[in-house]
C-alpha cells in the first residue's frame, strides 16, 4: 500500500508508516504533528472500518483518534472510538495517555460520577495496562526512566494504583448512589476477572450485565452486599422465582448466595432464617445437594427451640418444619415431626381456638395420613360439635355426612353421631318426598333406620318391608307438618298442607288420621287466605282438590264466599261472563255438589265465560 510520503522526499509511504509516525509523535507529546498525520492517513487510505477491529491498522487508528479526542476534551468521541479488545495492537504509550486522561477526567470537579463511557474506557484500558500487560507497559516505563523497574517495586506500585482506581470508582459510585450491582467498582473488579466490560454495550444501568455483576460479587466474597442490593431492588422476597422475568437473569446466582447464607445461618443456629433462605433459594431453582439436605434436616430438628433446648415456640417451629418438609418431602422423619408438632399445637388450642385446632389436626393428617393422634383430635372436635347439636346448639363448624359416617366406623357407640345421622336422613327423606322423589325418600328412610339408636349401620335392614318404610316416611312427613314453620303464616300453612298432602300420597287411604290432619290443614289455610289474600287464592286452593266438597261445611262456605266475592269484583271490572261463571260455581258448592271435578267440566250456556275449563274459573 503506497500513497505519498511522510514528508521525506523520495521515500514511499505506507499506512503502516503513517501510523508509526503518528504514534511516535504522540508519545513524545508532539500533538500538533499527530493530527496532520492522521488526516493524511485518512485522505490516502480512507477511514478504517470502525467495526473491522481485527485489522491492526484500524485498532491503531481508532486508539490514536480516541486519544486525540480525549485530549481535546471530547470524551463522547473518545468513548465511541476506543476499542475494547486487541489493544495490544496499538502503541502502548498512546493507550496509556488515553488511560491517564480517562482517570483525570473522572476525578475532576469532585468526580464525574455519571460519565459511564469514560469510566468504561478507564476500566478497560487500565485493566489492559496493569493486568496481563500484553502491550509491555513496563517496557514503556523502563524506556521513560532509563532503567528497569525492580519487580517488587513494580508489584507494589501496581497494587497501589489498582487500589487507587478502585477508590476513585467507589467514590463515584457513592456520589451517584449506585448499588453494588450497578457499581463501576464491581465492573472494574469483573474486568480483571473476565474482561467483562464491553465498550459497545455499556449503558447508564451498568457497565456490565447485572448477572455478571452478581457473579463477580458472589465469587469474590461480597455475598452479603449482593443479597442486600438484590433485596433493595426486589423487596418482596415472596416473588423471587426462577420463572419470573424479573429474576430469571440472576436466579441461579441469588439461589447460590442464599444457599451459602443459609449454611452460615445453620452454623450460627439461626434455624428459621436458614430455612427461609433455603426455601427462597429452592424457588429460584436451587437443587438441594447432600450438604444442603443435611443442613435443612438439622434446621428442621431445631427450629423453634432455643439454644438451650428448653425454650420452645410452637408457631415458629411449625412454620420452620413446614418449610423443611416442603424442601424435603420424602424425609419421613421431618414429616412425622411436623405432624407431631401440629397435633401438639392442635391439642393446646383445642378449646381456646377450635378452628385453629381443627386446621392443625387436618394439616397433620395431610402430612401424615396415618397419624392416629391427629385423627383422634379431629374426631374429638366432631364429637363436640355433634353433642352441641344434640343439645340444640349450633355446631362450631358445619357438620357433613361423610365425616360423621367415618366417625361411626371408628366409634360405633357414638350416640350423638347416630342421632345426627338419623336426623340428617330424616330431613333428606322429607325433602325428597316433598320434591316428588319418592324412591330417594325411601332410600333416605332406610339410611335413617340404619343409623337409628338401635340400628346396625353395616347390616342390611330387613326389619322393614316396603310398607314399613312407607309408614316411617309418612310418620316423618306428618311430624314435619306438625312443626312446619315459616317467617310468614301463609308459607307455614302452605308448607304444612304440602307435607300432609305428600304424606297422604305415600300412605294412600290407609292412614285416616293423616287424611284428617290434611283436611284440617287445608281448611286452616283456606280460612287464612280468605282473611289475608284474594278470593282467587282461596279458589286456587280449592281447585287443587285437596278437600272435597261436602266434607267440611266451613271449607265449602269459605270457597262459596270466595267465588261470590270474585264475581262481584269481576262485575265491577265489566267481566260479566267471568262473574256469571263464578256465581254458577258458588251455586254448585252451595247446593252441596260433591265433586270439584264437575267444576272443570263444560258449563251450561254458550257464553265463552261459561266454559267451565280451569282457565274460565279465573
Amino acid at each position, binding site marked *: 500500500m503506497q500513497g505519498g510520503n511522510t514528508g521525506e522526499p523520495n521515500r514511499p509511504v505506507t499506512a503502516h508508516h503513517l501510523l508509526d509516525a503518528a504514534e511516535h509523535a504522540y508519545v513524545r507529546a508532539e500533538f500538533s504533528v499527530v493530527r496532520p498525520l492522521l488526516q493524511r492517513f485518512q485522505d490516502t487510505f480512507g477511514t478504517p472500518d470502525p467495526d473491522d477491529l481485527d485489522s491492526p491498522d484500524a485498532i491503531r487508528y481508532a486508539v490514536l483518534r480516541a486519544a486525540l479526542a480525549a485530549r481535546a476534551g471530547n470524551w463522547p468521541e473518545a468513548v465511541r472510538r476506543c476499542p475494547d479488545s486487541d489493544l495490544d495492537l496499538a502503541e502502548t504509550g498512546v493507550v496509556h495517555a488515553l488511560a*491517564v486522561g480517562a482517570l483525570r477526567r473522572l476525578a475532576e470537579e469532585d468526580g464525574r460520577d455519571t460519565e459511564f463511557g469514560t469510566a468504561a474506557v478507564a476500566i478497560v484500558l487500565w485493566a489492559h495496562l496493569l493486568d496481563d500487560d500484553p502491550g509491555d507497559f513496563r517496557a514503556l516505563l523502563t524506556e521513560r*526512566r532509563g532503567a528497569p523497574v525492580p519487580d517488587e*517495586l513494580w508489584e507494589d506500585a501496581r497494587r497501589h494504583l489498582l487500589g487507587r482506581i478502585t477508590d476513585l470508582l467507589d467514590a463515584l459510585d457513592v456520589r451517584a448512589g449506585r448499588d453494588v450491582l450497578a457499581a463501576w467498582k464491581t465492573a472494574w473488579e469483573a474486568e480483571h476477572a473476565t474482561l467483562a466490560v464491553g465498550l459497545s454495550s455499556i449503558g447508564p444501568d451498568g457497565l456490565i450485565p447485572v448477572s455478571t455483576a452478581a457473579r463477580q460479587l458472589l465469587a469474590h466474597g461480597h455475598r452479603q452486599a449482593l443479597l442486600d442490593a438484590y433485596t433493595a431492588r426486589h423487596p418482596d422476597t415472596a416473588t423471587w422465582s426462577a420463572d419470573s422475568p424479573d429474576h430469571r437473569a440472576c436466579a441461579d446466582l441469588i439461589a447460590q448466595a442464599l444457599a451459602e447464607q443459609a449454611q452460615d445461618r445453620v452454623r450460627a443456629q439461626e434455624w428459621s432464617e436458614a430455612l427461609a433462605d433455603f426455601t427462597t433459594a429452592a424457588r429460584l431453582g436451587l437443587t438441594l445437594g447432600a450438604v444442603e439436605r443435611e443442613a435443612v434436616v438439622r434446621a428442621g430438628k431445631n427450629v423453634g427451640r432455643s439454644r438451650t433446648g428448653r425454650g420452645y415456640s410452637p408457631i415458629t417451629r411449625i412454620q420452620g418444619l413446614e418449610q423443611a418438609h416442603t424442601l424435603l418431602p420424602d424425609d419421613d422423619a421431618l414429616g412425622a415431626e411436623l405432624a407431631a408438632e401440629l397435633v401438639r399445637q392442635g391439642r393446646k388450642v383445642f378449646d381456646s381456638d377450635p378452628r385453629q385446632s381443627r386446621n392443625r389436626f387436618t394439616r397433620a393428617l395431610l402430612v401424615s395420613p396415618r397419624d392416629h393422634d391427629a385423627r383422634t383430635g379431629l374426631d374429638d372436635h366432631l364429637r363436640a360439635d355433634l353433642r352441641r347439636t344434640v343439645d340444640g346448639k349450633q355446631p362450631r363448624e358445619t357438620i357433613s355426612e361423610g365425616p360423621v359416617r367415618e366417625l361411626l366406623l371408628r366409634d360405633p357407640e357414638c350416640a350423638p353421631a347416630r342421632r345426627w345421622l338419623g336426623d340428617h336422613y330424616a330431613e333428606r327423606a322429607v325433602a325428597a318426598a316433598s320434591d316428588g322423589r319418592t324412591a330417594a325418600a325411601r332410600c333416605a328412610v332406610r339410611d335413617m333406620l340404619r343409623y337409628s339408636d338401635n340400628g346396625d349401620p353395616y347390616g342390611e335392614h330387613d326389619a322393614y318391608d316396603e310398607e314399613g318404610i312407607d309408614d316411617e316416611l309418612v310418620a316423618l312427613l306428618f311430624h314435619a307438618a306438625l312443626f312446619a314453620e315459616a317467617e310468614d303464616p301463609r308459607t307455614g300453612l302452605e308448607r304444612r298442607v304440602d307435607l300432609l298432602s305428600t304424606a297422604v300420597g305415600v300412605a294412600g287411604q290407609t292412614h285416616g288420621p293423616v287424611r284428617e290432619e290434611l283436611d284440617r290443614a287445608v281448611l286452616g289455610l283456606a280460612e287464612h287466605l280468605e282473611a289475608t289474600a284474594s278470593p282467587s287464592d282461596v279458589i286456587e286452593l280449592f281447585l287443587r282438590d285437596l278437600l272435597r266438597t261436602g266434607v267440611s261445611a266451613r271449607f265449602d262456605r269459605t270457597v262459596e264466599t270466595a267465588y261470590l266475592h270474585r264475581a262481584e269484583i269481576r262485575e265491577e271490572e265489566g267481566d260479566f261472563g267471568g262473574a256469571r261463571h263464578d256465581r254458577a260455581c258458588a251455586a254448585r258448592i252451595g247446593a252441596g255438589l260433591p265433586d270439584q271435578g264437575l267444576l272443570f267440566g263444560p258449563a251450561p250456556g254458550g257464553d265463552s265465560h261459561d266454559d267451565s275449563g280451569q282457565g274460565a274459573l279465573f
Partner: protein
Amino acid sequence: MTVDQPAPGTGGAEVPPIPWFGPTLHELVPGCVPGARLPALRAQAGRARAAARQDPDRLERIGRADRNSRATVTALVAEILTPPLPRPDTEELP
C-alpha cells in the same frame, strides 16, 4: 440502575474523597524526570514551590503532587500517571 439514597454530601452520609491522579511533579516541574531518586525529587519540588509562591494555584498543584510522591511506591505510581512528556528525540524515524 441506581438506588435511592441521600444526595451526595447531604444527610450526613460520608462521601469518600476523590483520589489524586495528577498532574504529577514530572509534568509540573521542569527537569523532574521519571526515575529520579526521592531526595532529588524532594529538592526539585521544594525549589518549585518556592518559585511558585506568587501563584497559589500552581503552588497548590505542586504541593499536592509532592505529597503524592513522597514514598518510592507513590513516586512510581506518579510516574505511571504521567502522560507523554516532550523530550529530545534523536531516534531515526522508521
